[in-house]
């Protein structure tokens, strides 16, 4: 076990010890009801909120937050439209986006919801977004973290369950450490099955009652299953776990449609949703390209081109996907996309260099030289100029030779 993970478990153990201590001092604290009354009336809930705020401060200082005020406003507006009558008046639900290409969303008990750019990029419309946000809101409003805390305070099995989940994925251990105990439980292991089922069901009802198309809500699960199959292995997070997604989809399909819903009057708001995502689709595609998940990256870029069909950066990224993947015929396709990017914006330096690289590697040094020179002319101070000057030098030597 590594040191960071040990520290996380130390935190978890601390939390459990605190739970035990709280239990001893208050004797028989009643379980919270499904419709809780006063927020923060108990010591343990106050402690959970304080812990959440500490973890969020640390988490957000790590450069993980995707900053886009317009998108955040939009997400918060969707939440406002979903707000349930159950919600305590002083519970403020807010949403932020995390720069992370994996499928996930999670909520802290104090109402802070984080959604990964990867999950947003894989959605098609606002109805699917509403379903995820309503699910997370349910965790906050029904105070699932507090319920879990009280239920498991005397059960070391809880610690073991989280430990086993974390040990499944090396990448997850770091994130778990970064987001803290409360976040790790919400984001990675998920809550107990009955609480997740409640969040699915209640979230589904809220989304449908807010006017979203129930079929779209359910289609999100199909989409996630298809994405998991495409990646070829499960992602580490709760929303990327195949059996969990399958089970949840089946549970929801069995659930009755909320009363008084005229399905013809429901909406999904695809265009508005995609317009609001805007450059997140490209930014997330870049993260997938870094991970070498070229097919998923392609999906994000294609989606972006549906809203901005003449965007030069999108065509450049399509070129990058093919050039970096390097399958048969990919170089030819990459050249075609880079050329399209240059046609759309001749002053955009990046595709000039990329075309130069393809010719350079093929030994077509004269052609390569032309594109490297145009790249340097367009962007003389670029951070990669030392490489480009090196290529130009080799091209010149080839000419002389």
């Amino acid at each position, binding site marked *: 076990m590594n040191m*960071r993970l040990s520290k996380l478990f130390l935190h978890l153990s601390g939390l459990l010890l605190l739970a035990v201590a709280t239990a001893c001092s208050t004797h028989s604290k009643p379980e919270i009801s499904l419709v809780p009354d006063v927020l923060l009336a108990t010591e343990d809930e106050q402690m959970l909120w304080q812990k959440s705020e500490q973890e969020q401060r640390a988490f957000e200082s790590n450069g993980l937050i995707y900053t886009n005020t317009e998108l955040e406003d939009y997400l918060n507006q969707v939440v406002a439209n979903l707000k349930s009558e159950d919600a305590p008046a002083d519970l403020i639900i807010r949403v932020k986006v995390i720069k992370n290409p994996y499928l996930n969303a999670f909520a802290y008990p104090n109402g802070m919801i984080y959604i990964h750019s990867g999950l947003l990029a894989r959605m098609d419309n606002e109805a699917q977004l509403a379903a995820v946000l309503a699910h997370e809101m349910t965790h906050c409003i029904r105070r699932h973290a507090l319920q879990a805390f009280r239920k498991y305070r005397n059960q070391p099995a809880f610690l073991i369950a989280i430990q086993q989940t974390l040990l499944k994925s090396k990448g997850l251990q770091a994130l778990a450490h970064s987001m803290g105990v409360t976040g790790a439980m919400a984001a990675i292991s998920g809550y107990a099955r009955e609480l997740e089922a409640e969040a699915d069901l209640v979230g589904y009802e809220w989304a449908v009652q807010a006017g979203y198309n129930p079929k779209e809500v359910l289609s999100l699960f199909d989409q996630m299953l298809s994405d998991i199959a495409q990646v070829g292995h499960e992602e580490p997070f709760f929303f990327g776990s195949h059996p969990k997604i399958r089970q949840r989809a089946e549970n929801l399909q069995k659930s009755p449609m909320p009363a008084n819903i005229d399905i013809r009057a429901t909406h999904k708001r695809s265009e508005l949703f995609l317009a609001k995502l805007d450059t997140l689709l490209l930014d997330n595609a870049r*993260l997938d390209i870094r991970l070498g998940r070229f097919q998923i990256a392609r999906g994000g870029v294609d989606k972006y081109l549906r809203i901005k069909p003449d965007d030069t950066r999108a065509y450049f990224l399509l070129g990058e996907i093919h050039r970096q993947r390097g399958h048969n015929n990919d170089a030819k396709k990459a050249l075609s996309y880079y050329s399209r990017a240059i046609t759309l914006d001749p002053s955009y330096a990046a595709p000039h260099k990329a075309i130069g690289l393809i010719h350079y590697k093929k030994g077509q040094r004269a052609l390569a030289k032309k594109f490297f020179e145009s790249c340097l002319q367009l962007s003389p101070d670029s951070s990669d100029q030392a490489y480009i000057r090196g290529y130009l030098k080799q091209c010149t030597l080839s000419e002389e030779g």
Partner: protein
Amino acid sequence: MEKKLWFSLFIIIASCLACTHTAGLSKPASYEFMVDIPEGWRKIDNNRYLLVTRENPFQQYILVQNRPIGKSFRHTKKKMQKAMLPEEAAQVVIDELISDQNLLNLRVLKNTPEIIKGFDGFKILYTYQDAEGHTYQTLYYGFIKEDTFFNLRFTASDRFHFQRDIEAFRHMLNSFEIIKAEAT
């Protein structure tokens, strides 16, 4: 993360055994290289890389590695390829670093071509923080020769250790020699 595991093991072993200063030439059979470890530095070697430190790995360490180009990285699915240009190899390293959520607030300060012992390679300078908020700076050299990606990196916990120990790293870099690869 695995590095940290090795660091932890290293500290435990170091505290159990008498301190063993191992300056001098290092060429275990499993490595395809030979380097001169500076006086006062201690090493922990294994099948995967050579790691040396002056005080402890949380203050500074130098890591030297020969890595088969087809070997997967921990985060990115991209792999090194024989025909890659140094810039492309550097990009794979950067993609791996950026995809690693252990490395918080990662900033690549410099990425330039570099001749390393006669081979076309790259040099990357970057900073990052760990989950405890400690800042580290790393100087990373790498190049591909045939089926192997060779890399040498120096990481220090702060400016003082970086400035003080960079000369030791340069000494190791200058002493670096490929051995097994030349025989094949």
